């Protein structure tokens, strides 16, 4: 006559969680806002800048800065870089009925796309210690002659 044994399924002991860890803000709370688009300059030399704001820093960047960041990451890091919102070359042609790339609805669309782009990159573990990303997010202006590499924590 065979009897089944009762399996021991008790949980393993673990340390109780610290209450500050349990109720504090999570460490992954990195949210980057792309804000406040402003068009600078006159005539054909106009361009739009956006405020890139994190918890501790706030810088102004334009679309070509985002392009620069994308190229740096594609070359140096092992990540698959998410797409940027489009270059909108058609909008830069003359004789358009609207404001082209300075059209309000287009700027808003681009702003949302840039916000999504930068958040996805900043959340990627393999991009988090790239010097180009740190410079993009924290430095006043981007030094295109910087030395690429990793930031050692």
């Amino acid at each position, binding site marked *: 006559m*065979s009897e089944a044994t009762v399996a021991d399924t*008790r949980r*393993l002991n673990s*340390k109780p969680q610290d209450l500050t860890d349990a109720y504090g803000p999570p*460490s*992954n709370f990195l949210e980057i806002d792309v804000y406040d688009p402003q068009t600078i300059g006159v005539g054909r030399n106009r361009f739009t800048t956006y405020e890139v704001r994190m918890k501790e820093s706030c810088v102004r960047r334009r679309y070509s800065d985002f392009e620069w960041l994308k190229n740096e990451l594609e070359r140096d890091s092992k990540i698959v870089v998410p797409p940027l919102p489009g270059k909108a070359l058609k909008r830069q042609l003359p004789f358009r009925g609207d404001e082209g790339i300075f059209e309000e609805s287009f700027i808003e669309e681009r702003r949302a796309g840039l916000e999504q782009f930068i958040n996805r990159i900043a959340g*990627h573990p393999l991009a988090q210690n790239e010097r180009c990303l740190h410079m993009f997010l924290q430095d006043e202006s981007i030094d295109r002659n910087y030395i690429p590499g990793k930031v050692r924590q």
Partner: protein
Amino acid sequence: MSFFSFGQTAEIDIVLNDAETRKKVEHKTEDGKRDKYFLFYDGETVSGKVNVTLKNPGKRLEHQGIKIEFIGQIELYFDRGNHHEFVSLVKDLARPGEMAQSQTFDFEFTHVEKPYESYTGQNVKLRYFLRATISRRLNDICKEMDIVVHTLSTYPELNSSIKMEVGIEDCLHIEFEYNKSKYHLKDVIVGKIYFLLVRIKIKHMEIDIIKRETTGTGPNVYHENDTIAKYEIMDGAPVRGESIPIRLFLAGYEMTPTMRDINKKFSVRYYLNLVLIDEEERRYFKQQEITLWRKGDIVRKSMSHQAAIASQRFEGSASSEKALSQAKEEDD
């Protein structure tokens, strides 16, 4: 098969002596069907009768000998012609001559060694079977009967837990623990995942059981991975200090014992794969091998021992611990 309307042919039937009492188990065939076969263990005797029935009454059956074989063999699917026999026993039932009427022959293979478990896999098959053969000049008459062999083990003396800290620097650090490294097929994997550092947005976490069948040697090694189970253990984003329990019942999954380098031809190994998935669908994983073994069905444990274990399930208390050690003493 006889193509001539004259001449004699016969039907062979193999019947085991203990066919009434011997247990049958289900075993997968190569095409995925499940059939029932008689179950044998290492060292058991295989005995029975071979019934030879003449098809055409009145005619004699000329033959070059009748024999029965007990064979254990490994067949690699990419090399079908070569069967590697690791057990091969033969008993002669009749010397060359003539059979005037249907006959029954007794056979017994005493205390046969059956060192490996029967296994039907993706690229390899290990099987045991009886084969009765009537040798003839032009064509033999053959009958095969497959049996299934299970290899049993007892509780291993050394069964340490698996405990490890892994992670990505500055990003994700976890400590995982599984209560044992060797589990029997109806066991429960009890474990926990403790988060030391969480700087990514985790969506959920799961444990997969992966079976890896390895065939071939040297440069021609081929691994076939099969995910047997996917079991979600956490839904949502954890923070530092959180501990996620694992309780995975193995009896629900179709698995075999771990088979290492069987007759130097193949291996079947099992791995636990801990997988974390973040909000961008990126996957982080850690694979860990576990050893599976087959426990015999008959277990002699006293009822008081079982009751003591059950009472300890809800946060061990001093009194139930005492009862447990007392019951253990009675048992020994």
